[in-house]
């Protein structure tokens, strides 16, 4: 096995499900001959043909709506939205239809679709290409929201997302597409969609994050260890429905929590985790629950984006802060 980039792991998972299940259909802009702007679908047109790897016109609302129609007919559409900044026109279809087709019809029709989209900043992209907007979907009942941070997790979670019976929004951390590398075994084994991943065990602080900031959190974990602080690092990976059990157990042990994400802090999904802690793990808390997140400002253009993105020093400052309570 060779090291695989995250984007290759995505492609492996797509190829895998497409070869095992003919009902899997890919939709998206430039996913065919061009192989996707990040090459996530590279070679799939050649392998699976243009019926199943379909370049769509530029019409994001209809892409989501097509997926609803396909899914209701027993197909398994996987749509790519080129950048998450263009996912907003899908929200109507996701909220008013995909997430509730099962409920509305008491299970008569179901909606097993996946919308994949790169998300987040740090690649010096043009305007509107660097946003993180998972929180616009995590209040929608009936949707699953997944956000992996490593090639293996991307592979396993994407397999499960596509094979599963529910609609899933699957965010891929853009700046890890090529930088995150891992041996990925094309075993066809999915990862369950109901468990967080504990990437590092520790006893002093629970560090909770997802997506690209997992990298900074890992670095902070190492750095903290050098300072004698033992960090337990949880990659949430599946935001909705949330496996809070793993987080609660960890915070009960450590008594301290720092939550990290790239989206703006106010109304971000970190708030949900902090709120659950403040309810269900309050009695074990030794320190305030800290969030290290994007600021409540529009994602700056590339010249300033590095100052917006939560980085290791900011995470360390929060860790030191919560450690100052004993």
């Amino acid at each position, binding site marked *: 096995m060779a090291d695989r980039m995250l984007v290759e792991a995505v492609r492996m998972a797509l190829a895998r499900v497409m070869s095992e299940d003919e009902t899997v259909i890919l939709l998206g802009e430039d996913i065919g001959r061009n192989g996707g702007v990040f090459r996530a679908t590279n070679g799939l047109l050649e392998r699976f043909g243009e019926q199943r790897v379909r370049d769509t016109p530029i*019409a994001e609302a209809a892409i989501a*709506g097509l997926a609803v129609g396909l899914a209701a007919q027993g197909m398994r559409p996987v749509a790519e939205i080129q950048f998450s900044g263009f996912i907003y026109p899908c929200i109507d279809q996701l909220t008013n239809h995909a997430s509730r087709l099962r409920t509305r019809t008491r299970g008569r029709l179901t909606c097993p679709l996946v919308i994949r989209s790169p998300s987040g900043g740090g690649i010096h992209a043009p305007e509107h290409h660097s946003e993180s907007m998972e929180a616009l979907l995590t209040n929608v009942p009936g949707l699953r929201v997944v956000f992996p941070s490593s090639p293996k997790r991307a592979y396993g979670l994407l397999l499960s997302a596509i094979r599963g019976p529910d609609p899933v929004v699957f965010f891929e951390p853009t700046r890890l597409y090529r930088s995150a590398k891992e041996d990925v075994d094309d075993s066809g084994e999915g990862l369950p969609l109901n468990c967080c991943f504990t990437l590092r065990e520790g006893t002093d602080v629970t560090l909770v994050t997802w997506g690209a900031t997992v990298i900074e959190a890992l670095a902070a974990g190492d750095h903290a260890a050098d300072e004698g602080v033992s960090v337990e690092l949880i990659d949430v990976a599946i935001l909705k429905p949330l496996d809070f059990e793993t987080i609660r157990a960890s915070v009960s042990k450590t008594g301290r929590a720092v939550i990290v994400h790239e989206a703006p802090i106010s109304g971000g999904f970190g708030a949900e985790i902090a709120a659950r802690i403040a309810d269900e793990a309050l009695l074990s808390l030794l320190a305030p629950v800290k969030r290290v997140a994007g600021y409540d400002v529009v994602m700056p253009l590339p010249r300033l984006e590095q100052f917006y993105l939560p980085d290791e020093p900011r995470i360390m400052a929060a860790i030191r802060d919560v450690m100052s309570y004993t």
Partner: protein
Amino acid sequence: MISQGASTPLRFIAPDGQAERELPVFADRAALISFYRAMLLTRIFDEKAVALQRTGRLGTFASSLGQEAVSVGLASAMRKEDVLLPSFREQGAMLWRGVSPVELFLYWGGDERGSDFAGPRGDFPICIPVASHAPHAAGVALAMKLRGEKRAAVAVMGDGATSKGDFYEAINISGVWRLPAVFVISNNQWAISVPVGRQTAAATLAVKAMAAGIRSARVDGNDVIAVHNAVGEAIDRAISDQGPTLVECVTYRLGDHTTVDDSSRYRSDQEVSENWPSEPVARLRQYLTAHEGWTKSDEENLIAECHNLVGEAADRYAAIDPLEPKDMFEMTFASLPRDLEEQRNQLS
């Protein structure tokens, strides 16, 4: 018979019940009587639903008074294996397809089981957000095409729906992918209080097909034969890989938008009165009477039959207990996540 966005809507039977041209072969006595029965049933169902709403036994309801020929014409042109994607004013089409009046009452009474109809299991539930089901029709049609099936998806929506991006994105994609989809516009001249002339400057709604490079037809939506004929031809084309069609059916909403609407706020009684003579049920009755020996007692029997059917359905509906509160959790996902299980337990 399909005229590319022609501006005079095609019809077979004039408002006075006289045939204006030779009827298509499908329009034999049995077929016409079945259309007539379905339109009458729809009308009587609508009356009952409005009455139930007025007495607090049903929620807000959208009557299709005056538009029965569109619903029945399109549904009767469909085959069982086709898929209907209805808007909120297509009880006529849904009843024809096999949805029961009890199920329709349940839906409008605020019970999700109304969309779990025993009838056409692959049909879509009623779509409330205007035009948002148009892309679903394209998706359904794509599934059919990919599987090589000879089936079509038929979506119905109002004149107002043609202003929405979803409508356009859906017809455009259907066109470029040659999908077996039929988009039926029930142009009842009004979108709540806005007349069609203030929705668009387009000459007709049928011409909007040109933007997508697809075929269109424009028919008198109060002539069930014309609607059936146009939708039937569109389905034939769809299933023989000739691509999608936009069918504009020109009709008129004789009633309020819904039971919470008061249309006298925005349109004159006179306008409504002027449109009554064109309404579809009397039109077909006159034709049947003149040409197919439809008698007064046939009529009375049919009315009684429809009243019975609808009345019984209303009684059965009234006897159905609501779902258990806990049932609201069951269908959120295919299986209940732990968090939701905890929430469900709180509810007790």
